């Protein structure tokens, strides 16, 4: 896909526009388990999580990372991401509202490409970070 962003027009400090998921659900986690092959039972098996001393199932970190990656590709275009790195912080529970967003922190040219880099985060309705991440993406 052609790059959505023109290198000259991107400024350090520009925002990656918010992408909001209004209430993630247990079926979302089950769908992600089936799609990804991550069948760790912590994300769908209530009996198992109670035995592990956890009140209920919670999202796969990579489900939430997927929401965050979509926020990024909506901004830079599909096929433009060169690096996507996430660190998982607080868990995402059924019913949580997940807001994905980011900010451009730098611009550089390397290996013949015009690149931007930035920070990403996915936060819950309390403003707690579920994911802190970073990216590098190519521009036109």
């Amino acid at each position, binding site marked *: *896909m052609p790059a959505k962003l023109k290198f000259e027009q991107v400024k350090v400090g520009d925002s990656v526009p918010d992408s909001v998921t209004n209430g993630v659900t247990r079926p979302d986690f089950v769908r992600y388990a089936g799609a990804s*092959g991550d069948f760790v039972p912590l994300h769908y098996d209530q009996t198992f999580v109670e035995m592990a*001393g956890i009140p209920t199932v919670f999202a796969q970190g990579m489900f939430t990372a*997927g929401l965050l990656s*979509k926020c990024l*590709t909506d901004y830079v275009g599909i096929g433009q991401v060169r690096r996507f*790195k996430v660190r998982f912080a607080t868990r995402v529970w059924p019913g949580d509202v997940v807001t994905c967003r980011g900010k451009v922190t730098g611009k550089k040219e390397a290996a013949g490409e015009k690149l931007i880099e930035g920070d990403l985060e996915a936060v819950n309705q309390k403003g707690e970070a579920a994911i802190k991440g970073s990216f590098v993406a190519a521009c036109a």
Partner: protein
Amino acid sequence: MADKSMIGKTGKPFTMPIEWSKVREFARAIKDPNPVYFDPEVAKRECGGIPVPVTFLQTAAFWQDDSSSPGMGGFDIRRILHGEQDFELLKPILVGDTLTGVAKVADLYEKEGGRGGKMTFLVVETEYKNQKGEKVAIARSTLIETGQAVKA
């Protein structure tokens, strides 16, 4: 104790065909309705073929077995957290490609943690090449085993 001798251990290479149905299913699961995943005509025009989502290489789980895994460090799955995930995407990956992945233990170490007690970190790095032998991606997973189940 973390068994440092595991560092550098690799799994057997595994083959991962990139299939449209899996790409569509994955795009739906991450709530991305972008037509490049759903309409081959649009995909061809915009990307030269159906591309894969940024985190799609997570589906390698379907193609790996015990022999292609470099080991889970003896971790107890009730106490595992996924700490970090890092993708370097070096060349386009399109439906129809066949990737070969090799996973290796890049690091294994311990740290004193907070509420979970002592934590063990396992970093698994998987390098992917396409059918032309080009290196297309590197995926790096950091898994953490906590000393006890972390309470919510």
